[in-house]
């Protein structure tokens, strides 16, 4: 049967084209959907990390630990972008006229830290100075204070460190600084209204020795039951090169855990590394899974619709195929031989249709995302996506062949009247289902746009809650566009048939 299949391909390419069309539709739709999902998912790591203030915190297990060599060591780890010193402690600040005396959270960073973190708004120059937040400024005695005196709380010996005030700082967005750095509630933000920021050099020279004398042994960060900010901590804030994370959030989450362990192994026992990126990446990974499910729920009906329509369009071949099978059976071909011929022709149609469909999918997604659709997608994942789309074409081919071979051949010499020739028009065309579906889809979207259903509300923040019926819009649009494409195809075929006087 190979010779006949080969001659059909060579001498009747329009038959191959029409059969391939039945494959092209579902492969293109499913391929485009899957590729778009991949592109969306690949962008989610960057989005998840975008708002990350500090990727990892290397917390000293004791205040006596010297983190300078640790910082130098960590800087050499591939993927580490920046390492910055950070210290914090609960202290008492007194105004120069001694009218004001408040408990505050003291933070110590190098002046460069303020430049590299834009979420520290309104910061004045820090070098050798202290910066007060609005709550401290509002406390009695601090409104116009040009110096503050810093002491440790409790029964500690008075420290009496006097630091000139360099200005103000807005810490309302510095959630990382107020986040519990370790333990079961890691990441929870503690409510501490008053805060002072001092130069790390001042902290290291004048405050840290007293803290070391007060808090001997392991710091609170080593306590798994930590439920509040530690009374004092010294740490390194590690910025990871975000381009080093795998673009898939699931893989990025695993990579982040591995990076955390690598950093911890650089100073075992000296530091505990808290992975701040783990939670947003895990959320992004879950979001990616939800997005995949959602897109597939929207894309699969579209693929099924166009597959059914593609099979319908290819049904124009049915008569020619049935007649050919009948002729072969009449001349003594067995069912196996007829089936083998159908399989060979189906395989050729699947191959051609899949290639064209995948090309269309890649082109459409590339146009939609503005760069090649394969960029950023791991090769294995890309291959799996393309194979899955091609499998949809294989399924369509299988269904078409099953219909073709299921029916017993009618041994007839004269072709039966074609539906188009006899004036018969499918019910969906008579009912203009394509136009109706498009109108319904557009109407749903228009109503939602008009009612503000597609706009974010302040409460929703970065998320957008959609009504369930909004999801009907893409389904209706899929159906409408698919049917419209088939209507156009059938009109084209009918006009060609009329012109040539022959069937396909």
């Amino acid at each position, binding site marked *: 049967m190979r010779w*006949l299949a080969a*001659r059909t391909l060579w*001498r*009747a390419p329009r038959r191959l084209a029409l059969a391939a069309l039945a494959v092209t539709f579902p492969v293109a739709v499913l391929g485009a959907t899957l590729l778009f999902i991949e592109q969306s998912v690949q962008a989610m790591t960057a989005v998840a990390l975008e708002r990350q203030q500090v990727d990892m915190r290397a917390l000293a297990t004791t205040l006596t630990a010297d983190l300078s060599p640790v910082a130098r060591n960590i800087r050499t780890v591939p993927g580490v972008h920046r390492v910055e010193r950070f210290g914090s402690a609960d202290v008492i600040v007194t105004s120069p006229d001694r009218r004001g005396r408040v408990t505050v959270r003291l933070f110590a960073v190098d002046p460069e830290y303020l430049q590299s973190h834009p979420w520290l708004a309104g910061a004045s120059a820090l070098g050798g100075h202290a910066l007060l937040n609005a709550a401290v400024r509002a406390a009695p005695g601090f409104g116009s204070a040009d110096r503050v005196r810093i002491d440790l709380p409790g029964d500690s010996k008075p420290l009496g460190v006097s630091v000139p005030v360099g200005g103000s700082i807005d810490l309302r967005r510095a959630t990382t600084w107020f986040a519990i750095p370790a333990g079961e509630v890691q990441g929870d933000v503690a409510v501490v209204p008053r805060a002072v920021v001092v130069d790390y050099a001042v902290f290291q020279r004048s405050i840290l020795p007293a803290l070391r004398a007060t808090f001997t042994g392991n710091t609170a960060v080593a306590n798994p039951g930590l439920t509040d900010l530690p009374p004092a901590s010294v740490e390194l804030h590690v910025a990871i090169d975000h381009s080093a994370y795998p673009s898939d959030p699931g893989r990025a989450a695993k990579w982040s855990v591995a990076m955390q362990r690598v950093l911890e192994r650089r100073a075992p026992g000296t530091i505990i590394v808290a992975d701040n990126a783990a939670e947003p990446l895990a959320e992004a990974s879950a979001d990616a899974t939800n997005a995949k499910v959602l897109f597939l729920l929207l894309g699969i009906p579209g693929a099924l619709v166009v597959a059914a329509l593609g099979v319908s369009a290819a049904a124009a071949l049915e008569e020619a195929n049935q007649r050919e099978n009948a002729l072969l*059976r*009449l001349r*003594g071909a067995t069912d196996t031989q007829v089936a083998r011929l159908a399989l060979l022709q189906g395989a050729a149609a699947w191959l051609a249709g899949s290639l064209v469909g995948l090309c269309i999918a890649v082109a459409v997604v590339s146009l939609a995302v503005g760069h090649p659709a394969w960029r950023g997608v791991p090769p294995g994942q890309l291959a799996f996506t393309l194979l899955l789309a091609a499998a949809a074409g294989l399924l369509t081919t299988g269904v078409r062949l099953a219909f073709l071979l299921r029916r017993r051949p009618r041994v007839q*010499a004269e072709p039966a009247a074609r539906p188009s020739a006899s004036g018969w028009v499918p019910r969906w065309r008579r009912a203009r289902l394509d136009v109706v579906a498009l109108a319904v889809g557009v109407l749903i979207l228009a109503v939602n746009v008009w009612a503000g259903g597609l706009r974010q509300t302040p409460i929703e923040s970065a998320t957008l809650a959609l009504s369930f019926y909004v999801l009907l819009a893409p389904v209706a649009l899929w159906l409408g566009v698919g049917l419209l494409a088939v209507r156009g195809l059938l009109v084209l075929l009918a006009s060609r048939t009329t012109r040539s006087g022959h069937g396909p």
Partner: protein
Amino acid sequence: MRVAGVDWQTLGGREEARFRRRNCGFVAQGMTALPQATAAENIEVPLLLDGVAAEERRSRVTAALEEVELTAHAAKLPEQLSGGQVQRVAIARALVAGPTVVLADEPTGNLDSETAQVVVALLLQAAHEHQSAVVLVTHDPQVARHADRIVRLRSGRLDLDPVPDPAQPGRA
């Protein structure tokens, strides 16, 4: 109905296909050639299906083409042939496997009377050479007069002519 001593209604699947391939030739009204195969390839089909060796296929197809006087048109597709030539291809294809019986259903239905006479004469002559019986259905009395025995179907009833004398030569 028995053909070559076999009740073919009792056959099924591969046996039926093999029996049809080796014992029955078909000529029908209209376009019964595979449109994507040349005249020679159309004639070759029954031999290919029967697994005949390439060398023997070639010689039998060549002989069949000569028999129906289509050697010059061997490489043409059916759409490049006239109606009469297509029917000659059908005759050659029906007889190339040396069948016991050729079933012809209105083989001249789409042909003008002159071509019809040529095609029928060719069919009967070729069948005679192959020693094949021909069962031919026709509405054309001019075609029917070539037959050894005529069975008329009138208003659903069979009207049988006398059985001819087997000793009388010249008819298939």
